[in-house]
């Protein structure tokens, strides 16, 4: 091994100094000045060390700065990257092309759902959620995707609608046998796995049919541009309602605690004050609601407030992925002279009218009784499964998920719906799946 010193020769056998000897009492002393050659070698060694460490640091910084999670420089670059990633079938790339808050919400909800599927012995215990997401969208590919950059529609400084004008997208999803347990596959597909058809979408056909290019929204988050599923959906919703994006966004009104955020959101709904309700939602995750809010509110007819006031309300806070699920523990509601109290009791809610003294309890068994009569024709094990499905909500408790952004708490409608679905499924047992699939009949 050589390194170029001033003499051009690597001299490891003649090191600038020999620290391995220092431990044996041979440190140089004032009366034993180091030899000139050693000093030169020391300087060379120091220079090499500095160069190597500086090079290593620069290489590390360069390697880390190539992050694919940082967004693109322009909306056009964002959609071009999306097109390239879809064309390459690069699902991890597509995932990083989407707005981070949306991706996080979808992932967290997906992870919760995956855990429930594993508990129900539908999904294999070792199956990773990222693989599941990949296989769910597996077979995605595209060719020749073209965007009309000149006609991109700039809505505001953080929202641009891009126009996809050409190319084809091919979807050939496959059922991943690794994802599901053999027991589930046998029950669900007794005649063997079905062949999933592939589907090719020609953008030119879509444009001929709809009369306009495919609109894909890109948004700016922390200086980078991302494709947004939520904004794209909202853009199409506004288009179909013949509305345009409002010039101003609704502000975000956060609270200092998750419980207060849920309380103010609930009170806003009771007051039919939908603007306040939108303002109480997470400005990152639900930025689309804040941006499109004014147009949506103008479309609504004047809503009638319920007249109900939340006097007191308490929650049991359950940490969930990305936030806190504030589950109702007790509440006192007032309307005019009437006062209603609600109290969580195990898996039930006790409801009392404090004026009349009337009391009733809402329990999973109430659902069971109701369903017993409604679903009289169904096999008993199917009825039991459906009862479990509905009773899961009460057993888990009624709640809304709050998320923290910038030190304030907001309600997350998407996560709340996801948590509600998970709560429903949480009531199911593995045998219920067999019953619902008709294995026992």
């Amino acid at each position: 091994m050589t390194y170029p010193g001033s003499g051009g020769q690597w001299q490891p056998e003649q090191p600038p100094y020999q620290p391995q000897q220092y431990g044996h009492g041979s440190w140089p002393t004032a009366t034993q000045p180091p030899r000139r050659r050693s000093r030169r070698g020391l300087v060379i060694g120091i220079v090499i060390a500095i160069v190597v460490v500086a090079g290593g640091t620069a290489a590390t910084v360069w390697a880390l700065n190539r992050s694919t999670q940082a967004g693109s420089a322009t909306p056009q670059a964002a959609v071009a990257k999306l097109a390239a990633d879809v064309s390459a079938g690069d699902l991890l790339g597509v995932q990083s092309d989407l707005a981070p808050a949306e991706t996080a919400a979808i992932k967290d909800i997906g992870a919760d759902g995956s855990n429930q599927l594993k508990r129900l012995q539908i999904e294999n215990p070792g199956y990773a959620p990222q693989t599941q997401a990949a296989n769910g969208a597996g077979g995605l590919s595209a060719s020749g995707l073209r965007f009309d950059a000149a006609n991109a529609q700039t809505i505001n400084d953080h929202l641009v609608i891009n126009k996809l004008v050409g190319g084809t997208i091919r979807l050939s999803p496959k059922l991943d046998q690794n994802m599901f347990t053999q027991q589930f596959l046998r029950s669900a597909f007794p005649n063997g796995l079905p062949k999933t058809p592939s589907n090719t979408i020609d953008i030119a056909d879509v444009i001929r049919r709809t009369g306009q290019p495919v609109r894909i929204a890109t948004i700016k988050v922390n200086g980078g541009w991302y494709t947004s599923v939520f904004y794209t959906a909202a853009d199409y919703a506004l288009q179909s309602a013949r509305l345009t994006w409002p010039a101003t966004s609704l502000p975000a009104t956060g609270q200092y605690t998750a419980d207060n955020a849920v309380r103010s959101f609930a009170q806003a709904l009771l007051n039919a004050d939908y603007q306040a309700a939108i303002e109480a939602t997470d400005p990152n995750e639900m930025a689309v609601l804040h941006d499109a809010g004014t147009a949506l509110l103008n479309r609504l007819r004047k809503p009638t407030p319920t007249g109900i006031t939340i006097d007191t309300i308490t929650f049991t806070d359950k940490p969930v992925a990305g936030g806190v699920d504030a589950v109702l523990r007790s509440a006192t509601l007032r309307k005019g002279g009437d006062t209603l109290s609600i109290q969580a009791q195990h898996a039930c809610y006790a409801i009392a009218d404090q004026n009349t003294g009337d009391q009733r309890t809402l329990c999973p068994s109430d659902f069971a009784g109701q369903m017993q009569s409604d679903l009289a024709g169904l096999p008993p094990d199917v009825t039991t499964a459906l009862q479990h499905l509905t009773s899961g909500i009460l057993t888990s408790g009624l709640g809304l998920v709050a998320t923290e952004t910038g030190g304030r708490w907001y309600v997350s409608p998407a996560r709340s719906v996801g948590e509600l679905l998970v709560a429903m499924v949480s009531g199911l047992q593995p045998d219920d799946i067999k019953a619902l699939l008709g294995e026992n009949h």
Partner: protein
Amino acid sequence: MRFSARGGAGLAFAGLVVVLVGAFLPWLRSGSALRDSYQSVDVLRVQPAPPGGAAGVLLYAWLAVIPLCSVSVALYALGVRRTAAALACLVAVLVAVVSIAAMLNMGAASDPIGFSPIGPIVTLLGAAGAFLGGIVVLRRLQSGVQR
């Protein structure tokens, strides 16, 4: 074949260089797109279930591979040979564990996402060289043999 301390240092140096080359070869495959180890770490840490426990620690420790390699070489250039050799061995063990884990979780070629073999294999070969070289340097210095 008996290596001298200098030969061991050369082997360790070459091994560390191969480790660094391997780190920038394909490690992760998604569709037809390939990612090197740093891009893979970037992607894996934002997954819905990012690796936890020891795997999570290794994921973040990977970011220290280049600095540790360069510090090892720098220490050797300064004459701090035992520490340099020990550090080379440490880096070798770290990258070997990650490479083997990646190879064991390669997945089927038909999977939409999976590990790519080339990066882990080259890195593992480099790790073997760096480890052996580091051990030779330590042994020779211990026995007082310089050449």
